């Protein structure tokens, strides 16, 4: 997914002289072709996230479209004030590509995990937050970023994630994709959790569990309110699913919408995500997802209980 996104940035840069790339201190060889062919628009500026964001803002003020890439937690937490003031207050077309959203860097520990990136980015006015499910969806998405007017945060997954997106369903920023039609329960999921949602829904369908649909909310901000509300009317319960803290992420966004718009008529909601504490284990992304009950089997189990207790 990372390679796809950067390859797309290279293609955009070839086509459009407004595109510039700014990295911090990325892996050797990153975008060599870009650097060789368009060195004047390729910047590798070292471990200076605050400066990089301000610099991107200055370039954007003068008509450029900077794509900034570094590790997700450093592009969100380390330079949060620059993102808020330089990018969001000025409402500038800078794209932040965050490597390793969620639990990807599990073996590296809590300093490297980005499990609150969505909530802090979505708290900022003018910011768009997108978490594609796989590299093919990423390839459909990145070209659309060229002419988006404001800042965009792009959450990258690990790479090598199963391809579950389907070209015929299209991709439009801010428009959720119904990956599986809703039954009793609707999963609302983002990023790679959508593939877990699909798998859990399939498992439930094959074991006399509740019929589950999957609404892929690749764009967490702006939330596709219309799609969410339309389904909320038809299902007995909604399960939100995110590789992210339960504080302020997709589940919170969906809950806020339902309470604000439907009040007591809102369907019951089960929010699945990461609890409000720093991860205390290492291992792999999959192991940590399992630890938090976010693998398909555990998800299916939670949904079965939820359907029995709350959404009966």
């Amino acid at each position: 997914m990372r390679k796809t996104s950067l390859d797309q940035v290279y293609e955009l840069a070839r086509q459009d002289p407004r595109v510039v790339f700014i990295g911090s201190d990325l892996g050797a060889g990153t975008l060599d072709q870009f650097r060789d062919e368009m060195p004047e628009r390729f910047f590798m500026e070292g471990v200076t996230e605050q400066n990089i964001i301000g610099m991107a803002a200055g370039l954007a003020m003068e008509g450029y479209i900077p794509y900034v890439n570094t590790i997700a937690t450093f592009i969100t937490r380390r330079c949060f004030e620059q993102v808020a003031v330089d990018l969001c207050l000025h409402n500038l077309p800078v794209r932040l590509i965050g490597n390793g959203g969620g639990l990807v860097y599990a073996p590296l520990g809590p300093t490297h995990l980005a499990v609150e990136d969505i909530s802090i980015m979505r708290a900022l006015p003018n910011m768009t937050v997108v978490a594609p499910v796989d590299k093919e969806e990423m390839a459909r998405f990145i070209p659309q970023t060229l002419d988006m007017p404001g800042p965009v945060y792009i959450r990258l997954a690990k790479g090598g994630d199963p391809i579950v997106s389907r070209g015929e369903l299209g991709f439009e920023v801010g428009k959720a994709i119904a990956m599986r039609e809703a039954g009793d329960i609707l999963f609302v999921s983002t990023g790679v959790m959508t593939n877990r949602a699909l798998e859990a829904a399939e498992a439930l369908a094959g074991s006399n569990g509740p019929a589950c649909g999957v609404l892929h909310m690749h764009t967490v901000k702006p939330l596709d309110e219309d799609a969410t509300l339309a389904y909320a009317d038809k299902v007995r319960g909604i399960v939100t699913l995110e590789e992210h803290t339960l504080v302020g992420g997709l589940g919170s966004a969906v809950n806020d919408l339902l309470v604000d718009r439907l009040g007591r008529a809102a369907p019951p909601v089960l929010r699945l995500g990461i609890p409000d504490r720093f991860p205390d284990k290492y291992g792999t992304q999959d192991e940590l997802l399992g630890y938090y009950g976010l693998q398909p089997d555990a998800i299916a189990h939670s949904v079965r209980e939820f359907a029995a207790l709350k959404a009966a």
Partner: protein
Amino acid sequence: MTHEAHIRLVGDDLDERSLELRRLVVRGLDGGKRGHLGSAFSLIEALRVLYDDVMRYDPANPVWADRDRCILSKGHGCLALYAILADKGFFPVEELDRFCRFDGILGGHPERAKIPGVEASTGALGHGLSIGLGQALAMRLQGRDSRVFVLMGDGEINEGSVWEAAMCAGKHKLSNLVAMVDYNKLQSYDRTAVVQDLEPLADKWRAFGFAVREVDGHSVDELRHVLSRLPLEADKPTAIISHTVKGRGIADAEGNPSWHHKSKISDDEVAAMYAELE
């Protein structure tokens, strides 16, 4: 010469142009009944020389692509910027009477897009130099000869982000970028030498790849002399350390930390300030 020695080396009495701009600052201060007077008064001559003698701009077209850019990174000194922008006709002088008011455009820190002539929204410290170097890179990419001036405070350059930006500007040899430090030796709490000593300041900027000059920041002649010879070195960004006096022009405020920011300013205080600036 040590920075201590500079404090009282502030040149001759202020001339009418400098007094006039200070009176506009007081007008804003009176409008909002508050403001960072000390921080604004130390900046007046730097802004005056930039806008009167150095920069290329068009008040009727504030976004003219070939203009020179000036970012007030120490956004709390905004009354000085508002004074010169009003004086030049970027917006009506009457706006100063609505400083910090609900329906005004001039807030306690400057905002881009809201105020004609303001290049960047500042106030959170340590942002301007990075934005400015991004603009300077853009000017280079576009083949424009526009220059970018970034005015910073001495307290502001406590921020690590300033030194990230300084490294970056030095690396890119941005000779179209000018960092100006309003070195009035007083930050909010106390003297910079007490809170976070900056010395040896000129050496620091030199070490980051800048061509450096120190000037008496209230001497119009010195400022003109240096600012008319940019870039100081062909392949380096410029740093100008402008030795100033916080609150310059009002005896009680000069060098007095309690004048960093004032609120609830009375009519009598305003009248006394106008009298002193006649």
